């Protein structure tokens, strides 16, 4: 890597439309004709991450966390604002994404690696490490449709981490892994952070956020309501949660 990884998000907003089923509403949306059903999933979100940063994103369901991650990982684009990213992104947004249930574990490693833009040669070189890390050697020749969600996660995470990303984005997914595998993943993530790479973590597991991120932002209805060191943010977030419950 010639330059250090960097993420620069500048006042991005993302427009969604509630009922996109009719011709008129889809057409209107594409042509950016305003409608009553429009709402901003993300509203003027900005932040910058530098080499070695680890960011936690906190927020209730529907606060825009996943949309933000999808914009960061190029899956979708912001309606307004710009995202500038230096470095290779490895994103684990949904478990089982990119796997073909009819293919075996072995074939799926190659398929998923290819989706991530790895060459066959690169995958072959890393194959042993991927299998070793996933702990799924005994399942390699079984079609993926017989895998449990934990096994999907193991395979997905192993391939993602072995593509050697500069920026690692993880959404919730790790929650389905068992304790031992989570432990193993976090050792790898720590290793990453020491190498000066960037991690972005979304989780409802406050322990996880506390242990593996140094700063956090809280999203509420698409707006960053708080940004700061992890411990302080967690306190604020938990306060917001209980406060919301009472109203």
């Amino acid at each position, binding site marked *: 890597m010639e330059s250090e990884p960097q993420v620069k998000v500048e006042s991005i907003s993302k427009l969604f439309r509630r009922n996109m089923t009719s011709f008129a509403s889809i057409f209107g949306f*594409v042509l950016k004709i305003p409608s009553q059903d429009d709402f901003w999933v993300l509203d003027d979100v900005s932040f910058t991450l530098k080499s070695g940063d680890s960011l936690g994103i906190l927020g209730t369901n529907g606060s825009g966390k996943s949309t933000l991650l999808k914009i960061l990982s190029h*899956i979708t684009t912001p309606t307004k604002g710009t995202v500038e990213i230096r470095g290779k992104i490895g994103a684990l947004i949904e478990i089982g994404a990119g796997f073909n249930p009819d293919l075996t574990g072995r074939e799926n490693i190659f398929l998923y690696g290819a989706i991530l833009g790895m060459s066959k040669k690169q995958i072959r070189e890393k194959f042993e490490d991927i299998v070793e890390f996933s702990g799924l050697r005994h399942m390699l020749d079984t079609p993926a449709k017989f895998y449990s969600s934990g096994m999907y996660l193991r395979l997905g995470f192993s391939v993602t981490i072995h593509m050697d990303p500069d920026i690692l984005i993880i959404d919730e997914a790790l929650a389905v892994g068992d304790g031992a595998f989570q432990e193993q993943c976090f050792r790898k993530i720590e290793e990453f952070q020491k190498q000066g790479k960037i991690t972005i973590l979304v989780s409802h597991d406050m322990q996880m956020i506390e242990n593996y991120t140094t700063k956090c932002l809280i999203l509420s209805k698409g707006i960053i309501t708080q940004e700061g060191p992890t411990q302080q943010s967690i306190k604020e977030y938990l306060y917001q949660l209980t406060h919301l419950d009472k109203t």
Partner: protein
Amino acid sequence: MIDLFKNIVTYRELLFTLSESYIKARYKQTILGGTWAVVPPLLLVFTAVAFIPNLSTRSPELLPYSLFVFVGFWFWAFFANALSFAIPNVAQNSPLLRKVYFPREILVLAAIVPSILDFLIGLPVLLFIMFLYQVPFHLSLLLLPFVFITELFLVFGLSCAGAIANVAFRDVSKFLPILLQILLFSSPVIYALSDMNPTYSFFIRWNPLTGIFDTARSFILPRYPFHMDEFFAAFIISILVAYLGYRLFKLGERVIVDIA
């Protein structure tokens, strides 16, 4: 257009892997397997020769007539099969699009590859028919790839535009089969250009398929005339369609996940 080639190079492995899986899926659990690539056009050739009045009695440049018809169906099959598979393919993969990023045009390209393979399987059949009718092998046969590449550009552009439109409105893939039938009748697949209704000559002239089929025939049939202007028009239009189709695709790609 440059990012297209860059993406193809970076994601070549994905392109290969996807194409391979489509090819495998295509002939899975069939008895004829890869032979399916040539059976339909051959049956159509047989039907056309048997049931449609033989046009070559009036125009000897169409001889041998079976070869004339085969070339038409061979190039037509590539066009029709590629579009039928590539246009619905992006919308069908919308769950994948929502979870991982990769250049979405790879889905269009990978869906065209199996039809390219089918086309190549037709090549020995062509040579066999030529051998059967004792048609001399001219050096002009070596020019066929130019005709094919022209058609490939056309198919790519139309697939891109159709695929992205189909993401927003599935009507596109519903309408596609009938559109293909309309084109089958209105392009010189079974007929020669000279046999077609001159009232619609405007459409026939500007339909790039006309130039593609006609030029291919002129390279294969011993007496079929070659019209440079016709091929040139088809080539320019195809390149234009490819460019505009791809641009439209890239524009639509930005909202694909929001509306798929």
